[in-house]
């Protein structure tokens, strides 16, 4: 048996696939079988701490066991093993949308936690911006996603060691944006106008065009005030990493952090 065959057999043993490893070894190989699953369960507990608290030990561990059986890890880093667990949970609990939503929120915050660094622009430099041609570039940790439940309120209560509210569907589907400011990951539920503006900005539409689109879509005078307020929120939240003109030339803006 070559080393490559032995390693394939050993992997198959860990994954409960047919193998012939037992003929090649002495000792207690079950230690590895147990350690493999225990390590991944520990990783999921760590990544989805609030989902674990919300579900309780029994339901969380059953979901984790199902996920581990269906999704062997492939990355060199355990940091990525949580990817897709929210989908597993949503599939296991289709009538409890807060479970999948809460796991998605935790996963997104975890990704933002050690995502790429970027200093936000300094609002003091905004006077130099040519807003007719300005394109916004966001910090690389920014992501957005849809939710249909009050997962944000549940997350917040669990984070503050308070009794979480009962799960409730939202009156209408909503969107949460996640980003990191400094060293801390944040999230915020956003309205339809901000979602529309953010999706346009993230796809590279310049700021004046975003204003025109929102005015045309809203059909009244509030859109201009809305976009001004939204831009102010983005700046205050440290979401904007750069503002450039059409040609890609950077505006003369300094960053807020050294």
């Amino acid at each position, binding site marked *: 048996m*070559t080393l490559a065959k032995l390693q394939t057999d*050993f992997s198959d043993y860990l994954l409960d696939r047919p193998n012939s490893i037992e003929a090649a070894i002495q*000792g207690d190989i079950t230690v590895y079988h147990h350690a493999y699953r225990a390590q991944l369960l520990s990783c999921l507990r760590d990544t989805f701490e609030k989902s674990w608290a919300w579900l309780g030990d029994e339901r969380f561990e059953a979901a984790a066991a199902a996920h581990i059986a269906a999704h062997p890890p492939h990355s060199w880093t355990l940091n990525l093993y949580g990817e897709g667990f929210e989908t597993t949970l949503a599939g296991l609990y289709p009538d409890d949308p807060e479970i999948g939503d809460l796991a998605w929120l935790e996963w997104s915050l975890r990704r933002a936690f*050690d995502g790429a660094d970027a200093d936000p622009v300094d609002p003091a430099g905004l006077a130099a911006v040519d807003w007719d041609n300005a394109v916004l570039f966001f910090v690389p940790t920014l992501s957005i996603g849809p939710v249909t439940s009050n997962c944000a309120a549940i997350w917040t209560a669990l984070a503050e060691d308070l009794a979480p509210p009962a799960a409730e569907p939202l009156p209408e589907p909503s969107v949460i944006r996640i980003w990191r400011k400094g060293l801390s990951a944040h999230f915020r539920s956003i309205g339809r106008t901000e979602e529309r503006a953010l999706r346009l900005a993230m796809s590279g539409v310049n700021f004046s065009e975003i204003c025109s689109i929102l005015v045309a879509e809203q059909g009244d005078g509030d859109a201009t005030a809305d976009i001004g307020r939204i831009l102010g929120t983005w700046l205050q939240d440290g979401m904007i990493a750069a503002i450039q003109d059409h040609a890609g030339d950077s505006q003369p803006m300094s960053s807020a952090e050294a």
Partner: protein
Amino acid sequence: MIAPFSGFGLGLRPVHYQHFLSRPVPVDFVEVISENFMVDGGRPLFVLDRIRERHPVILHGVSMSIGAAEGLRKPYLDRLRKLADRIDPLWVSDHLCWTGTGGFNSHDLLPLPYTEETLRVVCDNIAAAQDALNRPLLIENASSYVTFSRSEMSEGEFLAELCRRSGCYLLLDVNNIFVSGSNHGFDMQAYLDAVPFDRVRQIHLAGHSQGKTMLIDTHDHPVPDPVWDLYEEACRRAGPIATMIERDDDIPPLDVLLAELDIARNRSAAVRSEAA
């Protein structure tokens, strides 16, 4: 070439970050798990940069899979090189093991048969890693729970031949020798006799647990007396050497670990006074 460096350090764990950042800690170095810092940014690298300003740092990996028959993963080596260039570590280490195959990664330190074929595989992988990282590697003996009937040499003999052929250095985990020796019934003194101590640059100390059938390398207890005794034996052979305590579970307050590190200092000093 890695020059000898003697001193006493700890494995840096998140629960102690704030302590290390807020006050002087009497250690000569810290060791971190490389993969925890092979990230794009955020708090992990922020913390490591600041700790590096205060202490020499060793990068200790768990995912290189140096014994993988299919070779090493370039994206992993690229990430590790980037981190090593940023941190300028005392050295970079990983385990004599493999972690997966065919894209599957068990995230466990899986055992190798000690054969001529394995030697060729590991030497080729070490050469690739040392080239990609532009620095020599330290290879650590892992704890094991199985042995292979096809093995042609002991683990100590394998390590000696590995150093001779690849030019790598060794990180000798004394607890792992004790765990594997107890599990497989090999002679621990003979193991130490086979190790080329001129290539050993670091020693790991840790505790273990009694499993159903074997000792398990859990790093969740203080270093037990038999491991201290084996450490003294290693010190007699190695001379002054970088020594570190690994604790990964049921982690006590930092002061408790520092007191345990003082035991290592005293044991090492006692061996030196024997020789004087």
